[in-house]
């Protein structure tokens, strides 16, 4: 690519970015490829941040990985025991099921992968562990302001999506938990080499408080994107705000790279 065409491309990207940001500020989001703003000025700001980060930051840059000696203590917050009906995020539908699965040491637990994939399927823990694993010592940054370094062991999300035959039209990957939480990622973060489905933490199996038997780790965003207690992954061509259990309708930003 010549310097000139690169310049043209970047200028076009800039113009497109500015025009869409401007249009979105005025009219709200009508695109099905972007998170909606609902006409809310805070969500418009979130959208500008998302677009700017995706335009300005190199995709796929790896977060720093640390040494074993850097591992720190890790608070377990924001989620609760999915089997406890007294907890705020309890799901009457999935809570009792989680209780059963945990009693059986998650032997009957399965991760469903569905939506825009050629071969919708289920994975047992053993099947996930049989896929190539990745171990990474990374920093967890909570929106509250604290951070912690831990070692995570799991399977790259990309490997699981490819095993299910993710379709080329796919744009978003949504994650549903056994409690009332759900989050979504765009393909840049979903296919990021450090985005893993973790079953191990600090050299042992994933503790319940940190999302056993399987949790998402999204190292390029804040902690609340890393859904614990995974039940189901749904691949989509279009943006889905995930309704009452998604971050957006609860007033939280969908993209939290900052």
């Amino acid at each position, binding site marked *: 690519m010549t310097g000139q065409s690169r310049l043209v491309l970047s200028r076009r990207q800039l113009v497109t970015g500015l025009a869409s940001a401007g249009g979105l500020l005025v009219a709200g989001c009508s695109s099905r490829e972007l998170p909606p703003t609902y006409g809310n*000025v*805070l*969500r*418009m*700001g*979130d959208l*500008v*941040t998302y677009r*700017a*980060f995706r335009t300005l*930051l*190199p995709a796929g*840059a*790896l*977060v*720093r990985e*640390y040494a074993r000696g*850097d*591992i*720190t*203590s*890790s*608070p*377990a*917050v924001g989620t609760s025991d999915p089997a406890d009906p007294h907890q705020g995020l309890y799901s009457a539908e999935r809570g009792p099921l989680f209780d059963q699965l945990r009693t059986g040491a998650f032997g009957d637990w399965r991760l469903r992968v569905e939506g825009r994939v050629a071969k919708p399927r289920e994975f047992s823990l053993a099947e996930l562990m049989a896929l190539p694993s990745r171990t990474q010592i990374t*920093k967890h*940054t*909570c*929106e*509250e*302001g*604290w*951070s*912690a*370094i831990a070692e995570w062991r799991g399977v790259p999300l990309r490997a699981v999506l490819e095993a299910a035959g993710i379709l080329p039209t796919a744009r978003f990957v949504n994650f549903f938990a056994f409690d009332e939480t759900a989050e979504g990622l765009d393909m840049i973060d979903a296919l990021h080499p450090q985005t893993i489905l973790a079953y191990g*933490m*600090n*050299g*042992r199996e994933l*503790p319940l*408080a*940190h999302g056993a038997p399987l949790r998402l780790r999204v*190292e*390029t*965003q*804040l902690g609340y994107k890393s859904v614990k207690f995974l039940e189901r992954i749904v691949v989509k061509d279009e943006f889905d705000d995930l309704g009452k259990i998604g971050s957006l309708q*609860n*007033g*939280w*930003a969908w993209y*939290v*790279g*900052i």
Partner: protein
Amino acid sequence: MAAVLPVESSERPVAGHARWVRLTHWILAASVLTLAFSGFEILMVHPRLYWGKTGNDLTPAILELPVSRNYRHGGWAPPVTFDRGSTPVVSAARTYDIFNQNSWGRSLHFLAAWFLLLAGLAYLAAGFLGGHVWRDLLPRPRELAPRVLWQDLAAHLRLPMRPAAGGPPYGVLQKLSYAVVVLLALPLMVVTGLAMSPAVTAAYPGLMDLFGGSQSARTIHFFAFAALMLFLLVHVAMVALSGFRRQLRAMTIGG
């Protein structure tokens, strides 16, 4: 050196603030107030400051601020030990329902940060290229003589204060405080803010090292905020004491 700087420029406005200075001043003022408000809310959610790469309720803080019911709340389940090495790492579940309004707090913070960033970059570009920074903000070497500084300080402490015209030329303390705010403190706020972002630090990990870690950057972010609030207090007091109506007119309609 002086020859290349437009010190004696004939384009110098007669009096008052240039229109672009007035415009960016108020965009920055609104952004800073919004950032301070939302930033304080964010601080209230976790009023503990650390030094280094990480910090959380299970690790020691260098400063704890009594600014919300989250201050030393103590609602933690008994810790579970991961590693029985020389420095055992633990995990504990929180049993306390903390104050947390970060849903709007964080989004408002970054919305205001975009206005600060864009107005700030416009100000710095115009200020450096047009000569405002060199001409009006950076003190001449002779102004930094202790005697001159002392005289200017004494003049600020005498009441009633001598009425001042709105706009440059500024006294040496004025120059120093404005220069520190626009050339050091506000850029430092932006850069320490970015040093806390997981996506930005993935692309530019050097940002973390620059401050000794993301939590150090957060601590510096807080103290720079405190310094800016102190500046704001003195700034508004000086405006009020040196002819409030004239100063306000100079920074709004000009003249």
